[in-house]
């Protein structure tokens, strides 16, 4: 159990450790120690926060709130951790810790020689900040820190290919960041506040003016593009494959999920109670979810190298989460959280596997891979489990999230509901297909000339241990889905019925009645 003010450490630990690493940038050993210690501390803190929030969920202690400088809520800067934030923080901490250890063993000296360690910690700082912040403008600042670190990590390799893709990534992300600032400004003009809890309060008491709708639509565009949702995903497929797999694993695991988180925070918690916003936003999100799932997986099926398949799969998987946000029932949101947890772990794991595959063959092009089943049975087994988890075969981790989302979209009925359910099933099948494509080309087929005698990757053992630990974590999500689901339901209830969040941040205010979606037991009907 931790006190509420401890949560500021989520930003302080990576900030201080990152700054220290800038000073230490000539001493690699020291940087590694600082980085590992900071990420381990972050993991311990995140687990403690999750435990505290989950334990306190039934009472008043379910939301940890700290007001910076003790300024009262709408005026000061609010830092708040509710169940959703705590879940995201915990998974982020686990994934970033694992990927970091892997990166230490696999990155080239040249790549690690620069400011890699500091930048990595700053990226974690940005992601953590996005999860703990209690107002929209700080969310923008968090996004900027996260993206700035990701620009630096992306452009660290100086091949012309990477440089060209860096421009694409940087410019498109800068553009949506500018839209986010504009949207923040417009919203402030209309609502007079950017504090999430206060906006939630305004929308629950029906005080969102109709003229604020364009600004809210602008937010949808921004978060949609951060999430890489259809049709705003254009920045992702070309950029992720140019990065070293260790970095790619971190990006694929964390960044787009921050987008999904902000979508839940904004459109479910903040504006969910406002009928006009819901009518505007929900159909767009649902259509976008369908497109994201299906078109994303088509891109993956038609690709022929491992990195690209994995990168485009990020888009298709994000579609399921966006679907959950669009359905917006308690069960669908809980399924989204569960799916997000497993996706962050599994997707990073697959990228790390890809790193080892490349080390054997010197390439990630499927035609030139092969014979890895004989060369490295451990890698093959771990990849197989992770790939099937991603595809969602029972009882592996992806299954339960997908099943619940399917059930919820069938419950929605109507053309849209049935179409979405069909798309979800087809997407799932095609995911399996493209994962098996990697499996059969890289592992099962006979090795092409030259690959049989290629040396084993350096420090393969460390890589395999990290991958193994992450696969175990993913397995626990599948086999212990019941426990994870309990936490996910608390998180979903927290955003769907944000009264406890609002009163934790703003103090006792006049609370509106529970939103309709919760009132009809289990969220059966759609508003």
């Amino acid at each position, binding site marked *: 159990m931790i006190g509420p003010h401890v949560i500021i450490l989520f930003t302080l630990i990576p900030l201080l450790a990152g700054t220290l690493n800038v000073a230490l940038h000539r001493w690699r050993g020291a940087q590694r120690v600082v980085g590992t210690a900071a990420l381990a501390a972050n993991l311990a803190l995140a687990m403690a926060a999750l435990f505290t929030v989950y334990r306190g969920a039934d009472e008043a202690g379910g939301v940890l709130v700290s007001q910076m400088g003790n300024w009262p809520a709408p005026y000061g800067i609010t830092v708040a951790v509710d169940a959703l934030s705590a879940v995201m923080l915990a998974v982020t901490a686990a994934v970033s810790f694992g990927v970091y250890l892997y990166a230490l063993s696999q990155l080239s000296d040249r790549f690690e020689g620069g400011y890699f360690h500091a930048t990595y910690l700053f990226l974690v700082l940005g992601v953590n900040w996005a999860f703990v912040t209690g107002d929209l403008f700080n969310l923008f600042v968090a996004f900027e820190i996260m993206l700035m670190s990701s620009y630096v990590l992306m452009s660290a390799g100086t*091949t012309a*290919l990477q440089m060209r893709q860096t421009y694409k990534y940087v410019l498109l992300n800068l553009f949506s960041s500018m839209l986010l600032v504009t949207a923040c400004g417009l919203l402030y003009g209309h609502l007079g506040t950017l504090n999430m809890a206060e906006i939630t309060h305004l929308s629950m008491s029906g005080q969102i003016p109709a003229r604020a709708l364009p600004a809210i639509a602008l937010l949808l565009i921004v978060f949609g593009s951060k999430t890489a949702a259809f049709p705003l995903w254009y920045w992702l497929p070309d950029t992720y494959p140019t990065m070293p797999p260790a970095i790619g694993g971190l990006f694929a695991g964390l960044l787009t999920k921050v987008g999904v988180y902000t979508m839940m925070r904004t459109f479910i918690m903040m504006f969910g109670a406002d009928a006009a916003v819901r009518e505007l936003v929900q159909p767009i999100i649902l259509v976008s979810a369908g497109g994201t799932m299906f078109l994303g997986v088509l891109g993956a099926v038609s690709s022929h190298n491992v990195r690209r398949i994995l990168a485009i799969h990020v888009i298709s998987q994000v579609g399921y989460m966006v679907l959950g946000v669009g359905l917006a029932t308690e069960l669908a949101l809980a399924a989204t959280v569960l799916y997000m947890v497993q996706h962050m772990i599994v997707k990073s794991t697959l990228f790390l596997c890809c790193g080892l595959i490349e080390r054997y063959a010197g390439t990630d092009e499927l035609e030139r891979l092969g014979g890895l089943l004989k060369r490295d049975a451990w890698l093959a087994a771990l990849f197989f489990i992770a790939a099937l988890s991603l595809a969602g075969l029972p009882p592996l981790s992806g299954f339960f999230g997908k099943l619940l989302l399917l059930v919820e979209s069938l419950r929605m009925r109507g053309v849209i509901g049935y179409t979405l359910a069909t798309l979800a099933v087809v997407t799932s099948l095609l995911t399996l297909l493209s994962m098996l494509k990697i499996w059969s080309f890289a592992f099962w087929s006979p090795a092409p000339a030259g690959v049989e005698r290629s040396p084993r990757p350096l420090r393969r053992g460390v890589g395999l241990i990290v991958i193994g630990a992450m696969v175990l974590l993913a397995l626990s999500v599948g086999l212990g889905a019941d426990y994870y689901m309990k936490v996910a339901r608390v998180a979903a209830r927290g955003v769907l019925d944000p009264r406890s969040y609002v009163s934790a941040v703003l103090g006792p205010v006049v609370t509106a009645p529970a939103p309709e979606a919760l009132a009809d037991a289990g969220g059966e009907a759609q508003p």
Partner: protein
Amino acid sequence: MSLLLAITVGVAFAISMYLLTGRELKGIAMGVFLLGHGANLAIIAVSRSPVGRTPPILGPHGLIRGTEADPLPQALILTAIVIGFAVQAFLLSLLVLTWRRTRSLQIDTLRDAVQDEYDQTSHERSLVECTPIHPDQREDLA
């Protein structure tokens, strides 16, 4: 005044869109900078009257209810400007790197450079450059 600001914001956004769609990297960078300024101006333009609220400034007798401008948007803009500086510094250093590498700041030249890279050193090289190289493989690559 509001109208003037609104028109300025519109013009700034329009010019930056035009620059962003160009084929010249310097112009694109300028477009990004201008977009930032446009966004900041937009915040000023809409923040003049946060509807029905007084700015949160405490005077000796509680909240000041005068004609003071709301300080919060200005704090937002200051933060946004600082972040904008960082972004500009990064983008400009990326431009310098690109110039050193390709001796040009045209997007098309960069594309040709990518093509050359594919042809001359093969895709594997750029992959391998980012991962540690096994001692046995070092000679093969050299």
